[in-house]
């Protein structure tokens, strides 16, 4: 479409006016701090420097060198990736399965499921974390009580937050609980949008249900699944509140740390702001890589901004 040059110029002026307030905020509170984050990561920036008692010392990439040779960093990075992977796969499987179930159920059971999912979705991360901690509490929790009642008497007084893997598992369960509704709602809308003729035609051709699901429905839903996956990766990679609250700031001896909490603890508990910033930069780079993949996928599926 060709647009008259004059219109473009007039639009341009109006656009600047309309975009200015949002742009000022985003440049001031996101772009500039990102630049500062990179800057701080190049300095020896600890409490004396933060309070102005000692001058800053430029280190170039020494913080990064120290970070990359620290075995704890690699262990935290691995834990972050695996933890995010479990949360993403869990939310997609639970959300997808319940979306399919919802399409096959009658209106009232379906409405009940949607209401419950809406409730889980709306629960603030902080409140959700505490409820799950209470459900799995060592002495007063419902879960241990029920398990003991079922004959698992060895689990009486069992602590779910002490062991590294069960603590991660508990946090992952809470995260899947509050993030599967997004997947379920989008998948449900996607399945509902498939014209019934398509499925009926396949049925007339004698295709089995399994065949219809994998050969007809899945390919149509694929773009939606890809986008839901990438959104979940981005969310779950950045989890902070649940880990911080449920594992008491990163677990016993920091064994339940993920990158975000690690950066925060280094900076604000350890007062090593330069090192914390370096971790933040590593995280930003990793997420930018995911973004590039996301944009590629979007473009391939014909997305036009």
């Amino acid at each position, binding site marked *: 479409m060709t*647009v008259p040059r004059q219109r473009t110029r007039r*639009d341009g002026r*109006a656009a600047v006016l*309309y975009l200015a307030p*949002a742009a000022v*905020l*985003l440049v001031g*509170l*996101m772009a500039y*701090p990102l630049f500062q984050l990179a800057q*701080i990561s190049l300095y020896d920036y600890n409490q004396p420097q*933060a309070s102005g008692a000692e001058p800053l010392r430029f280190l170039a990439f020494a913080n990064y060198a120290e970070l990359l040779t620290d075995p704890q960093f690699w262990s935290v990075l691995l834990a972050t990736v695996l933890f995010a992977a479990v949360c993403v796969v869990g939310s997609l499987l639970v959300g997808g399965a319940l979306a399919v*179930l919802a399409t*096959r*159920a*009658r209106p009232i059971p*379906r409405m*009940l*499921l949607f209401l*419950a999912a809406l*409730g*889980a979705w*709306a*629960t*603030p*991360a*902080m*409140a*959700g974390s*505490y*409820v799950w901690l*209470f*459900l799995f*509490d060592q002495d*007063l929790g*419902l879960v241990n*009580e029920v398990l003991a009642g079922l004959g698992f008497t060895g689990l009486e007084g069992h602590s779910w937050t002490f062991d590294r893997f069960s603590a991660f598992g508990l946090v992952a369960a809470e995260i899947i609980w509050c993030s599967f509704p997004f997947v379920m*709602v*989008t998948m449900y809308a996607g399945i509902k949008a498939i014209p019934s003729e398509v499925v009926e035609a396949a049925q007339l051709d004698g295709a089995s249900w399994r065949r219809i699901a994998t050969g007809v429905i899945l390919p149509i839903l694929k773009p939606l699944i890809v*986008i*839901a996956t990438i*959104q979940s990766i*981005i969310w779950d*990679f*950045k989890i*902070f*509140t649940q880990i911080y*609250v449920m594992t008491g700031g990163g677990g016993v001896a920091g064994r339940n740390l993920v990158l975000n909490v690690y*950066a925060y603890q280094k*900076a604000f508990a350890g007062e090593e702001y330069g090192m914390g*910033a370096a*971790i933040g930069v590593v*995280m*930003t780079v990793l*997420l*930018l890589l*995911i*973004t590039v993949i996301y*944009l590629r996928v979007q473009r391939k599926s014909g997305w036009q*901004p």
Partner: protein
Amino acid sequence: MRSRISDVLCVVAAILVALPLYWMVLSALKPAGEIQSADPRPWTFAPTLDSFRRVLDVQGFGQYFLNSALVAVLVVGGSILLSFLSAVALTRFRFRGRTVLLVMLLVAQMVPVEALTIPLFFMVRSVGDVAPAFGLNELGPLVLVNLAFSLPFAIWMLRGFVAAVPADLEEAAALDGASRFQFTWRVLFPLVAPGLVATSVLSFIHSWNDFLFARTLIYSSTENRTLPQALLVFYKPDEQDWGAIMAGSTLMTIPVLIFFVLVQRHLVSGLAGAVKG
């Protein structure tokens, strides 16, 4: 393809998903003796508001609730205005650099804003020397930070709603002698109201749930705390007052739940639009 088994599975799933919420409200209403019992029952015959009273009276939860509400209202108001203006510019105006801006908007959604606590802490500290209302331990910076970080997604989502208003309408309004300004505020603004509702819910939740920035920027003031931090105070390493924690969690969840139920229809269509891009 409907079957009784699907119905039963659906109801079982609904019960399991709702169980944590039920347990939260139930535990908030249980008398202290039943909470402390090592034999928890899924009901109570003596519901009491004691835990709520303890939370509201003793711990100053009311003040924190008001702080959270104040921040959230300002964030929602700002986000409605700014995201509407930006969405209009990005969908209805033709200008050079539009595509670049859209891609940047997408990138902005991916930035791990949690990492920005470090530079923002120092930034707010120095701003506080000049403008005390926007320094550390004040609610001002919290409003700005939450507003800024909820904007990219809000603009992204609203774009779909603004684009759905047909261009003919703008031409018709122009023929009737309406200026662009009049069209934007008198015609477009009411028409995208459902989108604005959906956007404001997400901005509200963003600000209401924010724990990290509240904790970092309001690190020592007790009267300017917001809800998430207030809850953290209840949680002690040894003797847990679970009744109070559950009552506080319930109080924190109710406003979001009300919002969600009111706008669920708009929210789903809005999210579907945002996901389609």
